[in-house]
């Protein structure tokens, strides 16, 4: 017998992976390549790749990221992923003809999924089946259930009414030669309410071809229900696979636990690695090229122009559409950061109680059974959020955490004092990992040259050391404060309870450059990169490790946290104002994070931390948009004074720094007029 399949659906919008809700709201999650690689490594039963772009335009061309591919459409992407995609791959979106299907198959897909085009011209199903075989043709049906419980097929990404009954339509698709039906519930999309089992079983009973159920999965236990409850051949879902680590394995496990005989779950692979592999020679050539361009003051590889400029801004906060964080806007021009923040502000008391209970439950699951080890681990930098997390976990909830710090050697004096006082202020154990400075200096320089961020080592360090230590001591729960991207750009909804994932680490914290990228550069050895080597998937699975964001469970306001920590634990804020933002309590742990690191963000994308802070304060309702703009005008462009320290630390001249930084100027933001770099601003 064929084994029931569990199928992750990756939704792509202009080449970026997105989270979808009700077919309308799309939150950008990142690039698809790493996710596909890992699903292949884990032996996912099958993969569905749906391109929901409205236009044929892919935008992954950031020069500071490792992820690159030549194409500008789904075809280029398919070709690239076929190198790691050793699993069945079905693809859909924008397929209008047999020729479209043929192109996708020859680029690496095994099946084509058609939806709108099959409704507009049902002959396409039979034409495809005749030319390519029924097994290649999957008809996707988006069904909408109205208030009276009547179902209707909709086309155009759920937007157009068709008058078709999903069951009748499924029968016709089969008769016309469809090999499979993908049935999706529009009104369950992104809701987490579970599959519409009535809809799925209706279709299953009407046809003899395999039916893939989709839409609404909110819990792992929803997966087996599509199979046992509705008779589907496969259970598919999109969003849930992005929220937590090893989600695919937990989905399989839920099926096994429910007595559904799926193909055994797998964590490791002999042939596909989790870490990307890099070509050292290629990497060295890239570095040499970059330095050449810098020497010649050549600026970025691709030159921008005034006309080419595509930046727009959120209508409420100050966030630009081209940013360091993937950003999406809704149809009214509101950014996803604002949308998600609006929902957050409105947590009811009941909601707050529920979330706290959930946190306690999650923490209990990792508590030491015999009491011989710490209950959880908190990744701390000694900042206001670190204090708040430790305060909440230990003194409010009563758990015994182990604190772990990656010491990037960039602490301000105030930050240092705060960090070393945590053991006294809270009476907790605290491991501070201090990497050798010689190597740190190399990594600072390489970070700047390779990706235009001298603080890469810090981001990978705090994404690794806490996990290395947690794995060593078999502590399953690692706690972070905020999910940076959920907070800034509303990457996830607050009902997602998004957790730490390797994908987030690699793509966002690391920009696609894993620790092994640096091995061999500037004489760096693998053992010198020890502090940056994240535990294996096998370890994470066996220990059941999870990384929780406290901000998903408790009300979170950086300003208020700082004030409370000052009052309760004598947390010190900076007496000196920062050069690049008006806030005084953020990033005391790292003198460069608000300085050089953030200035580089401005050089790349034309905005800085002041935009981040003002946008957050506007969302919280404590700053007006007008005041925010004034702040941004004052701070975003400022060249910070800590640059002198950094240049001295790594031995680089300011003009070399500027020249290297200029090679990273995003051509979608900046253009050059003589010697001057120009961009549009939000107040123009």
């Amino acid at each position, binding site marked *: *017998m*064929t*084994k029931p*399949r569990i199928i992750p659906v990756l939704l792509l919008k202009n080449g970026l992976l997105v989270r979808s809700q009700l077919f309308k709201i799309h939150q950008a999650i990142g690039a698809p390549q790493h996710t596909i690689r890992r699903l*292949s490594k884990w*032996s996912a*039963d*099958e993969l569905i790749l749906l391109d929901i772009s409205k236009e044929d335009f892919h935008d992954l061309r950031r020069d500071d990221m490792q992820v690159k591919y030549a194409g500008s459409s789904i075809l280029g992407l398919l*070709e690239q992923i*076929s*190198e790691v*995609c*050793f*699993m*069945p*791959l079905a693809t859909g979106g924008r397929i209008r003809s047999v020729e479209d299907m043929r192109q996708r*198959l*020859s*680029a*690496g*897909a*095994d*099946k084509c999924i058609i939806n709108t085009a099959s409704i507009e011209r049902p002959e396409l199903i039979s034409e495809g089946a*005749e030319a*390519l*075989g*029924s*097994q*290649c043709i999957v008809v996707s049906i988006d069904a909408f259930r109205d208030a009276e419980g009547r179902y209707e097929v909709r086309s155009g990404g759920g937007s157009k009414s068709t008058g078709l009954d999903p069951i009748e339509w499924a029968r016709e698709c089969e008769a016309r030669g469809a*090999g*499979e039906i993908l049935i999706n519930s529009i009104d369950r999309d992104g809701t987490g309410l579970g599959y519409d089992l009535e809809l799925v079983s209706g279709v299953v009973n009407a046809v*003899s*071809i*395999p039916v893939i159920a989709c839409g609404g999965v909110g819990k792992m236990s929803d997966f087996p229900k599509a199979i046992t409850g509705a008779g589907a*051949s*496969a259970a598919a879902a999109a969003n849930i696979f992005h929220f937590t680590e090893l989600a695919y394995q937990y989905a399989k496990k839920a099926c096994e636990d429910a007595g559904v005989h799926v*193909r*055994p779950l*797998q964590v490791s*692979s*002999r*042939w*596909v690695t989790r870490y990307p592999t890099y070509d050292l020679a290629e990497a060295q050539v890239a570095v040499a090229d970059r330095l050449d361009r810098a020497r010649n003051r050549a600026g970025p590889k691709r030159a921008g122009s005034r006309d080419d400029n595509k930046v727009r801004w959120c209508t409420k906060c100050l966030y630009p559409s081209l940013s360091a964080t993937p950003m999406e806007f809704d149809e009214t021009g509101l950014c996803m950061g604002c949308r998600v923040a609006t929902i957050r502000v409105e947590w009811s008391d009941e909601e707050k109680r529920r979330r706290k209970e959930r946190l306690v439950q999650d923490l209990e699951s990792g508590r030491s059974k015999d009491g011989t080890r710490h209950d959880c681990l908190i990744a701390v930098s000694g900042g206001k959020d670190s204090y708040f997390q430790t305060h909440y976990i230990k003194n409010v909830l009563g758990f015994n955490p182990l604190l772990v710090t990656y010491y990037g050697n960039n602490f301000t004096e105030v930050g240092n004092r705060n960090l070393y006082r945590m053991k006294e202020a809270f009476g907790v154990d605290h491991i501070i990992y201090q990497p050798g400075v010689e190597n740190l200096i190399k990594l600072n320089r390489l970070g700047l040259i390779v990706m235009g961020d001298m603080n890469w080592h810090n981001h990978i360090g705090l994404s690794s050391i806490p996990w290395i230590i947690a794995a060593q001591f078999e502590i399953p729960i690692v706690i972070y404060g905020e999910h940076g991207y959920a907070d800034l750009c509303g990457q996830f909804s607050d009902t997602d309870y998004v957790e730490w994932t390797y994908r987030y680490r690699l793509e966002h914290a690391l920009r696609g450059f894993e620790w092994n990228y640096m091995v061999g550069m500037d004489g760096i050895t693998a053992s010198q990169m020890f502090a940056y080597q994240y535990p294996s998937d096998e370890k994470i699975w066996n220990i059941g490790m999870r990384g929780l964001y406290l901000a998903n469970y408790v009300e979170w306001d950086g300003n208020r946290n700082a004030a409370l920590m000052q009052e309760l634990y004598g947390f010190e804020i900076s007496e000196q104002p920062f050069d690049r933002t008006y806030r005084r309590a953020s990033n005391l742990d790292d003198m460069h994070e608000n300085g050089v690191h953030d200035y580089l963000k401005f050089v790349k994308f034309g905005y800085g931390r002041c935009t981040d802070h003002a946008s957050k304060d506007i969302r919280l309702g404590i700053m007006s948009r007008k005041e925010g703009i004034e702040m941004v005008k004052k701070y975003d462009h400022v060249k910070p004074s800590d640059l002198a320290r950094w240049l001295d630390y790594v031995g680089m001249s300011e003009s070399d720094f500027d020249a290297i930084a200029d090679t990273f100027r995003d051509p979608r933001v900046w253009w050059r007029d003589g010697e001057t770099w120009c961009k549009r601003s939000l107040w123009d």
Partner: protein
Amino acid sequence: MNLKILDLQISNIRSVVNAFRVVGHDPQVIKTAGEIVGADLLVLPGVGAFRAAMKRIREAGLADPLRRHALEEKKPLLGICLGMQLLADRSEENGDTEGLGLIPGTVLRLNGDQEGVAVPNIGWHEVQKTRTDSLFPTALDGAYFYHVHSYHLVPREDEAVAATIMFGHDRIATAVQKGNIAGVQFHPEKSQDAGLNLIASIMAGFGRLPRMRLRDNASGLLALSTNGDESS
């Protein structure tokens, strides 16, 4: 070993090429009859309709060079999915069509009139190895492989069946081997570790074929007993 993959230009072969690469081989993709010459090992992948594929093979003049490679030179040939079906004498898909005639047998439509089965058969099947003396490794037994097909090859000689799956109540061939000619109905290039392991060990097995041919028996089947049942 000079490994060539024949691109019939009727389906995607990129994944097949990548799968061979990942397990450490460097396949050359070829499209014309002339390029078959000199191949130590030929892979014939394919997805789609039997008739269209045979038409393509005949128009491109590939049938004779393929037969020469496999029958006269007795060099290894591996068919994948439709590529395995093409090895048969004939197929009933879209009316009766003659195949390459390298594995005696007929390609028939799967029996969909059984409770709980669907045609096309799409999905993961546990594979049972039926012979201990075939090219296929022990690791094949009980492993899951991805199948996508509406038709299946029914070999005339039971000995040609190397592995089977259950389709409803039918036990059907999913891997065949007759001497230097082998085929798999499933997609090893889409079966992740199980498939990649299989490709690696088939390649190792084919590498030993010249020695094995000395013991080629009358029925044309290879007895690999002295090598044992090789896994990877």
